[in-house]
């Protein structure tokens, strides 16, 4: 490190500075100046010292230059503050005679002594060359107007860019938040430029931006969608898909899941023969499709049940109306059978046609058939669940047993009773052994009927079990005993 000198010779510093300086008294008499000043003004020291500055460098007192310079000196003396002149033309007398056109920039700094201006230090810079260059440029290209035009245009472009940026931002936000999925793919390798939130959800949150479709969504390439996109791009014809099945990874790396999509592939860019890319927009209609499928299934099932029920009603009518029975009696029998069928349907409807309880089915059928006499029928056992078809069969069998009891058996007098006992084994391989014993007592003496009517045959045919049921009808003198043994599939609630 250099040692700091004991004292600094400021006069030498002043003299050696490359910046031109001149020191004036408040009355503008030149006190001293440095070498740089003498060089730029092309004068000798002795020509200047002791003279007024306007005497040393004369100019027309009415000229703008003279006024500008004089006013600046006056301000410094009056205010004691520095004053600057950005640009001033002040021509200098050449040693060889005549004046040279010169442009200056000047700073006038007061040197104060006890609050009063003792000297004014002028630092002056010759900017003639700069000024000439600017003038030259102006003459060459009308720069003032051009410059302001360029500036205005630059401003306008700047504002336009700003509003374009805002517009783009708004559009991006709209795409991003659109309820439908939106993506833009560009180039022959179908590279994702844009994919909104709904699109990203659709593809299991995979990061697709900047990736070719074969890399981003390999599974859709196998399903022909990349070819379809390429066809739209090269032919420039939009493609509209409705309810199209697409297998997609619902989670990145997870198993493929079927989605149904409504979508459009729209070619974009008009400058070439081929489109520059494809705009993809659409909706996931999977839930809607599933709801429609489910509805179709329900309607088909309903149709099947209605047709089946009509067939049953037809069969009941055929069995009720025949040559051996009085028409009035036949209609009564038919009405009673329809009533029993209707009661069974009501019971099943309450359970959405999924199942019906064993005891409930018997009770409902007995109540529908026997009316007030139902009190004389006691029913006990476990209330296991029956499949709908089994419940209908059982209800109709019970109806026939009840009708028979009312006409010929225990319910045909005032005191007879019917005891219905049910039993069920525990489930083995989802099958349950069910036993139903219908025992009549206290009725008139019973004998085996000479011919087997519909009721008897229906009872004997059993419970529409998926496995054969065994039915025995024992016409004992004390009353009918009917035993139904069936293997039924378990029904879950």
């Amino acid at each position, binding site marked *: 490190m250099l040692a700091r000198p004991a004292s600094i010779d400021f006069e030498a510093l002043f003299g050696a500075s490359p910046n031109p300086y001149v020191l004036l008294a408040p009355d503008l008499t030149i006190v001293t100046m440095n070498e740089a000043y003498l060089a730029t003004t092309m004068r000798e020291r002795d020509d200047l010292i002791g003279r007024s500055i306007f005497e040393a460098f004369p100019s027309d007192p009415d000229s703008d230059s003279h006024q500008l310079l004089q006013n600046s000196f006056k301000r410094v003396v009056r205010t004691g503050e520095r004053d600057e002149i950005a640009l001033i033309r002040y021509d200098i007398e050449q040693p060889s005679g005549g004046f040279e056109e010169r442009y200056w920039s000047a700073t006038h700094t007061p040197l104060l002594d006890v609050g009063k201006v003792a000297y004014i230090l002028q630092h002056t810079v010759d900017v003639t060359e700069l000024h000439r260059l600017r003038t030259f440029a102006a003459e060459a290209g009308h720069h003032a107007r051009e410059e302001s035009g360029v500036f205005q245009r630059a401003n306008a472009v700047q504002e336009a860019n700003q509003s374009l940026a805002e517009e783009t931002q708004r559009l991006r936000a709209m795409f991003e938040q659109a309820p439908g999925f939106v993506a833009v793919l560009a180039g022959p390798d179908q590279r994702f430029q844009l994919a909104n939130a709904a699109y990203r959800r659709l593809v299991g949150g995979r990061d697709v931006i900047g990736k070719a479709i074969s890399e981003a969504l390999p599974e859709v390439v196998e399903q022909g969608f990349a070819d379809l996109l390429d066809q739209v791009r090269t032919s420039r014809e939009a493609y509209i898909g409705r309810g199209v099945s697409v297998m997609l990874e619902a989670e990145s790396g997870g198993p493929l899941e079927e989605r149904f999509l409504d979508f459009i592939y729209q070619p974009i860019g008009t400058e070439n023969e081929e489109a520059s890319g494809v705009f993809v927009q659409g909706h996931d209609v999977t839930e809607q499709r599933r709801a429609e499928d489910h509805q179709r299934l329900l309607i088909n099932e309903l149709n*099947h049940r209605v047709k089946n029920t009509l*067939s049953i009603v*037809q069969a009941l009518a055929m069995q009720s109306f025949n040559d051996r029975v009085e028409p009035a009696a036949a209609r009564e029998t038919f009405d009673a059978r329809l009533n029993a069928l209707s009661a069974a349907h009501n019971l099943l409807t309450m359970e959405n046609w999924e199942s019906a309880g064993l005891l409930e089915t018997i009770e409902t059928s007995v109540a529908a058939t026997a009316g007030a006499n139902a009190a004389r029928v006691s029913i006990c056992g476990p209330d296991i669940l029956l499949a709908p078809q089994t419940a209908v069969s059982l209800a109709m069998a019970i109806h026939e047993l009840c009708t028979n009891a009312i006409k010929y058996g225990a319910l045909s007098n005032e005191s007879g009773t019917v005891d219905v006992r049910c039993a069920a084994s525990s489930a083995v391989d989802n099958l349950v052994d069910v036993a139903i014993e219908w025992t009549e007592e206290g009725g008139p003496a019973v004998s085996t009927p000479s011919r087997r009517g519909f009721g008897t045959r229906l009872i004997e045919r059993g419970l529409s*079990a998926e496995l054969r049921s065994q039915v025995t009808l024992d016409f004992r003198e004390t009353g009918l005993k009917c035993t139904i043994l069936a293997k039924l599939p378990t029904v879950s609630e």
Partner: protein
Amino acid sequence: MTLSGATVLILEDEPIIGLALEDMLSRHGASVLFASQMEEAIDLIERERFDSAILDVNVHGALSYPVAALLADRNVPFIFATGYGDRSHPPEFAAVPTIAKPYSAEDIRIALEGRP
């Protein structure tokens, strides 16, 4: 074939409909073999002799096409009865006459005898 004197196998899981069908056929002079389950029908096909068959398509929730295939193997003529109006059969059974529930005795006679 004519129904009179013929033996007909019925596969029908709904006992009430089965009974009515049995009566219809009896009235036309036919005898009936009745099955309410597919296993029972297959058992009858293997053990009994009969001239034709009426198969309910949906038996306890399953389709009766395996029974149909067995009948086709043995060249026994058969028809389908179905409550599903809009269901089409697999190609090998596309030509099999099908009657829709509810059907009349005449529907069955025409389908089985092959003439009005």
